[in-house]
Structures are given as structure tokens and as C-alpha cells.
């Protein structure tokens, strides 16, 4: 590696007694893509927030081209040529793409904004990444993936020499991912440097020049993408050998009763003629790219939207076409949404309340809620699902993503759900917790006869956890192969066929 153009030495960050970073030293050279990996809570985001001037380290120093620098605010970092495209979409929805890209950096003549110049400049940065996005369109009209790309264009528009990309591909389809990769490679070829954070280990192996592993706020190792493997990366991130699920697929599922039968379900503009059957004790994966219509189908089955055609049968009983979520829940069919923070948890309420919210009728006494019974039941599920918590009275937000997801699973088991539709249940959850949840789901289907529709964008995960896989593409079911006989390549081929 050449001389580092940017370097962090012995960075620590403490919040009270919590040490988010414990003396991390890391550098980046010109024309280098440096991947940072680690479980959630490993300190990646904290470190990147320090690099881009959002927060200040408790101790340690930053060096740009060998000279010590201090960033009091993001603008200082931008002046030093460092810019971040954060994971969360952080754009102004009612402004145009062009203005979002140039926000705070409008071209001016005198006191007035020179719109032509501003737009032209925005367009140049946008074209670098994706030529198909209309710069005059309002941002809220764009898909999530396009917004993500605009956000990256915005970071680039600050004339950054060091880009921080935090989970840039989380919402991207494979085609957009390719666009992004070729942009990142071009940026590198021109001498730009990239800190690249991702949970997708495959793309890191493909893209990165160097991999740094963080664990519990400490730098635990550096890997060479040319020689390392995914298993090695996972082992380093988790600090132990992670028990891979690899659960044996079920045999004789076809003979078991069908609990959920979807027949010819259609919603114009979203999905078309979707049919599949879910057997008791089965995990039915649903794979496909973003925009394949998987979430739309799930929401329609659950009665959040109305179908234009087709039927849904639950335990042999045809569900009313105008069913509500409440009807479905009463019959044992539940939906765990994709956006856990936005649609899953009640952030202001306690763990116990988050779990019991749909089951409160069971704990209503004559005058008082039977709190003791409620807590006993909550404790039971905490134990069964191995949720790590202090007290059930703590706010749900005190838990990690994985444990929050388990609370939501507990919520529905407590409500005696028999059929679960889970939408990206492990997104944003660290590797160890992910495997744990996968194994847990397997246990529930095996021992308790639950049936699960498991929607996931990660082919690897779908292959690991499912018995059969519904492959969707652009609103249509392309096939339902058995997981044991499928590979990532075969699934992709099927989707594109």
C-alpha cells in the first residue's frame, strides 16, 4: 500500500460507561477501496461518523496527508475531501434530484442561485452513477434504490477524494449494484478512496482491496480479499465459529395438509397471477429482487391491500376478499413487516408491551390488567426465544436489532399465530443473531408445526432456511423449486428466464 492519505490513530469513543470504540487505528491510501466489516454494534458506524465530522472522538487523532486534523462539524470533513453516503435515505423528498445533489453547494451569481449552472453540475455527478434518473424529478417519486444512488451522487458532488459508503447496496437491485460497482471502480482508478461498509460479504470480496474487521469497538484483524473466504470473515466478525443453520430440509411435506393456499392472486401494476401452497411445518422462501412484488403480495394476503383477482385460503377456508389484518390475525395468519423500525416496533413502549400489544385482551382483568400473568408469559417467551434483555420493562429500543425481531416473533407466538409471513426478517441483523433466528424458526416449524413464508433478498439465506423457494420476478412467479436442488445461480437464472 502507498502512503496513507487519511489515517485515524488510536480512536476511542465512549458514551458514559459504554465504549463504542476502543482504540482503533486505520488508514486508507489513494485509489484504495477499504472495506470495514463487523456485526451490528461493532463500531463501524461510530467510526465513520467520526471520519465525516458528525461526532468527535473521545481520544485519538485524525491525519490527512500526514497532518493532524480535527473535524468539529461535517463541513470540516467535507473541506478535507471526506464525504459520506449514509445508509438511511437522507434527502429532501419535495426537492428535485438536482437540487438535492447540490444542496448547500448551489452555484451562485451574486446573491442569487444560478440554476442553470447548478443543474448542469448536478447532472454531471448524476450521470457518473446512473444515467436513467431524471434530474428534474422530485426525489419522493424515485424508488428507494434510485434515492440511494442520488445520495451517493450527492456525496461525490462535494468533490470528495474519500467516499464513505455505508451499506450502499442494501436497497439496490443487481443491475443497479453493477452500476454502483463500476462507478466505485472508476472513482478508484482516478485515485479516489472509498471506505466501504456492507453486510454482503460476497460483494466485499469482489470489490475491496483490503478488509478491516471490527468487533466490539476494537480492530481485530485485517484480511486480504484475494485469499480470505466468507467463512473466515464471519468467524472474525463473530469472534467464534458460528453454528451455520444448514437445517435438513423436510421430507414428505407434499403429503402434509396445505395451510395457506394462494391462487391466482393479482393486483394490477403490482403482481400478476401469483399462486403457491404452504404446507404445515414448511418454510417457504420467497426470493426475488427489490421490485419483484414480494412485499406487495404479502401485504395483500394479510388484507392491507385488496386484490383485483384471485383467492386466498387459510386452513382450507376461503378468506373474505375484503378481509382486514384483524381478521387474518384472528384466524392465525400474521405478517411481520420489512421495515422493523417503521412498522414493527412501538419505539416508545417497553419490551413487554411490544410483545403483548395484540394479546392484551387475554390479560384484561375485571378492573386491572393482570400484570403478573402478563410478565410471566413474557418471561416464558423471552426464555424460549433466548432474548437477551435486562428487564421486560426496559424500552424496546434498548435491544439490538436481532433481539427486537425476536420480541416481534414472540408477539405473534403469544397470539397463537399458526402461519407467519416474514418480510426480510433478518435484514440489518448481525450474522450470529441471523443464524440464531434462522435456527429458531426451523425449530418452531419442526416442533410446533408453524408454517412460515420467508421473504428475503439474500439468496444464500433463502437457500439455507427454506424447504421450497418461490422465485418472483417483476410481479410474476417464475417457479417454485425445492431448496435442496437449487443454487444461487439457478435461482437467478430462473428469475431472469
Amino acid at each position, binding site marked *: 500500500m502507498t502512503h496513507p492519505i487519511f489515517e485515524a490513530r488510536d480512536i476511542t469513543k465512549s458514551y458514559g460507561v459504554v465504549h463504542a470504540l476502543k482504540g482503533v487505528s486505520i488508514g486508507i491510501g489513494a485509489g484504495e477501496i477499504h472495506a470495514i466489516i463487523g456485526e451490528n454494534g461493532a463500531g463501524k458506524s461510530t467510526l465513520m461518523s467520526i471520519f465525516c465530522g458528525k461526532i468527535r472522538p473521545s481520544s485519538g487523532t485524525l491525519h490527512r496527508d500526514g497532518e493532524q486534523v480535527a473535524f468539529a462539524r461535517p463541513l470540516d470533513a467535507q473541506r478535507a475531501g471526506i464525504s459520506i453516503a449514509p445508509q438511511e435515505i437522507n434527502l429532501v423528498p419535495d426537492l428535485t434530484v438536482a437540487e438535492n445533489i447540490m444542496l448547500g453547494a448551489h452555484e451562485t451569481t451574486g446573491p442569487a442561485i444560478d440554476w442553470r449552472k447548478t443543474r448542469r453540475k448536478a447532472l454531471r455527478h448524476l450521470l457518473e452513477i446512473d444515467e436513467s434518473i431524471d434530474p428534474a424529478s422530485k426525489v419522493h417519486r424515485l424508488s428507494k434504490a434510485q434515492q440511494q444512488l442520488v445520495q451517493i451522487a450527492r456525496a461525490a458532488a462535494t468533490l470528495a477524494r474519500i467516499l464513505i459508503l455505508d451499506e450502499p447496496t442494501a436497497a439496490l437491485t443487481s443491475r443497479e449494484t453493477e452500476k454502483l460497482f463500476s462507478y466505485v471502480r472508476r472513482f478508484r482508478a482516478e485515485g479516489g478512496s472509498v471506505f466501504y461498509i456492507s453486510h454482503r460479504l460476497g460483494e466485499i470480496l469482489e470489490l475491496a482491496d483490503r478488509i478491516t474487521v471490527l468487533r466490539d469497538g476494537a480492530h481485530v484483524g485485517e484480511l486480504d480479499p484475494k485469499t480470505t473466504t466468507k467463512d473466515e470473515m464471519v468467524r472474525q466478525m463473530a469472534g467464534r465459529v458460528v453454528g451455520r443453520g444448514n437445517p435438513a430440509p423436510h421430507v414428505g411435506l407434499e403429503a402434509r395438509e396445505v395451510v395457506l393456499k394462494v391462487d391466482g392472486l393479482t393486483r394490477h401494476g403490482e403482481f400478476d397471477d401469483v399462486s403457491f401452497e404452504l404446507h404445515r411445518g414448511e418454510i417457504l422462501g420467497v426470493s426475488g429482487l427489490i421490485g419483484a412484488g414480494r412485499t406487495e403480495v404479502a401485504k395483500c394476503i394479510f388484507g392491507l391491500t385488496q386484490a383485483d383477482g384471485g383467492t386466498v385460503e387459510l386452513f382450507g377456508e376461503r378468506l373474505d376478499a375484503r378481509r382486514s389484518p384483524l381478521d387474518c390475525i384472528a384466524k392465525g395468519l400474521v405478517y411481520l413487516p420489512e421495515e422493523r423500525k417503521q412498522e414493527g416496533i412501538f*419505539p416508545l413502549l417497553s419490551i413487554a408491551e411490544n410483545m403483548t400489544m395484540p394479546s392484551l385482551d387475554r390479560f384484561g382483568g375485571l378492573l386491572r390488567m393482570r400484570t403478573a400473568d402478563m410478565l410471566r408469559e413474557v418471561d416464558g417467551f423471552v426464555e424460549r426465544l433466548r432474548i437477551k434483555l435486562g428487564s421486560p420493562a426496559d424500552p424496546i429500543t434498548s435491544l439490538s436489532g436481532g433481539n427486537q425481531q425476536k420480541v416481534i416473533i414472540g408477539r405473534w407466538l403469544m397470539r397463537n399465530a399458526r402461519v407467519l409471513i416474514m418480510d426480510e426478517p433478518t435484514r440489518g441483523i448481525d450474522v450470529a443473531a441471523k443464524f440464531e433466528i434462522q435456527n429458531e424458526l426451523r425449530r418452531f416449524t419442526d416442533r410446533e408445526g408453524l408454517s412460515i413464508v420467508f421473504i428475503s433478498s439474500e439468496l444464500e439465506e433463502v437457500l439455507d432456511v427454506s424447504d421450497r423457494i418461490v422465485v418472483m420476478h417483476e410481479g410474476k412467479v417464475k417457479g417454485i423449486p425445492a431448496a435442496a436442488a437449487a443454487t444461487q445461480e439457478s435461482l437467478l437464472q430462473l428469475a431472469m428466464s
Partner: protein
Amino acid sequence: MTHDITVSSAHAPAKKRAGLLARFWQWEASGILVALIALMVVLSLATDNFLSTYNMSVVARQAAFVGLVALGQTLVLLVGGIDLSVGAAAGLSAIVGSLLLTMFGVHPYAVIPLTMGFGLCLGFINGFFVAGLRLNPFIVTLATWEIFAGLTMVITKGYPIRPLGETFGVFGKGEILSVPIPVLVFLVSGAVLIWLLTQTRFGRNIFAVGGNRDAAVLVGIRVKFVEFLVFGLAGMFAALAGILFASRMDAGQPSVGEGWLMGAITAAILGGTSLRGGQGSIVGTMLGAMLLTVLANGTVLLNVSGFWQRVIVGGVVLIAVLVDLFRRRG
């Protein structure tokens, strides 16, 4: 904290030992309770008559009227809404109640529940637009505020309806065990709402809807029903305050309820209720209403010009918000 209400009492005794003071400080209404006590101590030292029985009953009664309105407002704020029409709804209900009594000869005892029913219906109008049609509560209730206030003037042409009679007057003027009846009504209403919010499914659903509406839909809560009912209750409590005030004044005055809107919102905010929904408490609101009235009363007793009163109230709200900010940043 709100999420502690139902579960913490039976749980984690170790936490309790962590310090009563710390736990008290954690409670969102703690600041206002301290402020209220401090203010009362100062006023009782600085004036001769603050603690007099007469003055106390005046203060308590005033707090009861605006407090009743604030109770309903708190429910609306908890589901993430706001009701600007409560003051006007109180006024219109008081007028309609007075007319029931004087023009239609309804028995005085039946007037109160009928008026409350009328207020409930006014609230349901808001609820229909906000919950049913998903319109912005600020805009909807801004419109109904004008409509209710306008109807009051249409009906009364600006003249009070009086007299309302001795029998009816008992609700506003009477006392039980030397506690004014409006104060009793306020306390009982507060107690019922505390029970409702902490011990019933409907109450917990209010917190869920206000805290995360999308999630509430997905767990099968009848979100629209909850919102609809809450707006209805806000109208009902406003009507209750209005008719009690009419009884107290022995007149259905068109001006009843003027000033109650800001008082109600201020009381709720002082008590730690969040305008974003999902956070707040009835106890806080009740204390907030007390604090507001004691402040007003104090300025009078200290011979401070009435014009300064609003400046002081505004300052207190800002201080309350700052205190809350520092507590959160802990």
C-alpha cells in the same frame, strides 16, 4: 416514563432500590410537580391569602374547568393528533345545554349527560374527518373551531342564556365535604382516565397508535376506531367543562370556552405530553392545569398587571420544555 406504567410495578425491585430520587426524576411529570410545590410555597410566603380556604377553592375550581378540557386534549395528543376545536366545542355545548334546560324544559339532572353526549357528537365530527378520511387534524379542527364558535353566535346572537335556575346551579356552585363539585368531577375524570390508559386495552392501544401508527395497524389494532373515539372523548370532556361552567355562572354565555384551548394544550405540554404522540400522562396534565391556574392566581394576588400574566405563562412553558430537554439528555 409511560412504558413503565403497566409493567414496572411488578418488576425489577432491584431497580427500585437504585434510588427513589432517580426514579422520581425519570418520571415525566416530576419537574412540574416540583415547580408546582415551589410556586405554592413562594406564594404562601409572599401573600397572606393564597392559602385561604376561599382562594384555594377558587384556584381549584378554575383548574378544574381548563383541566377537564386538557384531559380530553391529552388523549388526542397521545394518539398523535391535536384538537383546536375544544374551546369552541365547550362553548357550543354549554349553549345547547342551557337551551335544553330553558327552552325544552329538560330536567336539570338530565342536562349534564345530554350535553356530554352532544359534545361527544361534536368530537365525532372531528373524528370522522381525521380518522375516517385521514385528513390533517390541525386543519380539520381549525375549521370545526370556526364552525362551532360561529354556531354559538348564530344561536345566541351574542346574548347569554339565563337564568338557569337554582337546581341546576348546584353542579357548578355546590360542594361535597367542602370540595367544589367541578373539582370532584375533575379528579374523578382524571382517575377514570388514568385507569383507562393504564389498565385497559383501549388505553394501551392509544399509546401504540400514537407511538407508531403503522405498527399498530399491523398488530391488528382498530386504529381508526381508536382515533375516532379519542376525538369524541375530547369533545365530551370539553362539553362537560362547558356545562359545569354555565352552571357555575348561572348563564349559558357565548364566551364560555374562550381561552380554554391554549390552556388545555399548555397544561398537557407542561405535564410532559409530547406533540408527536405516544408519550404523556394524565397526572402530568392535571398538575399542568394546576400550575397554570396557580400562576394566574399568583399574579393577581401579587398585584402584577394582568397583561404580564401571559408573558409569565409563556416563559414557564419554555422553561418546562428546557427542563424536559435536559432530562432527556440526562
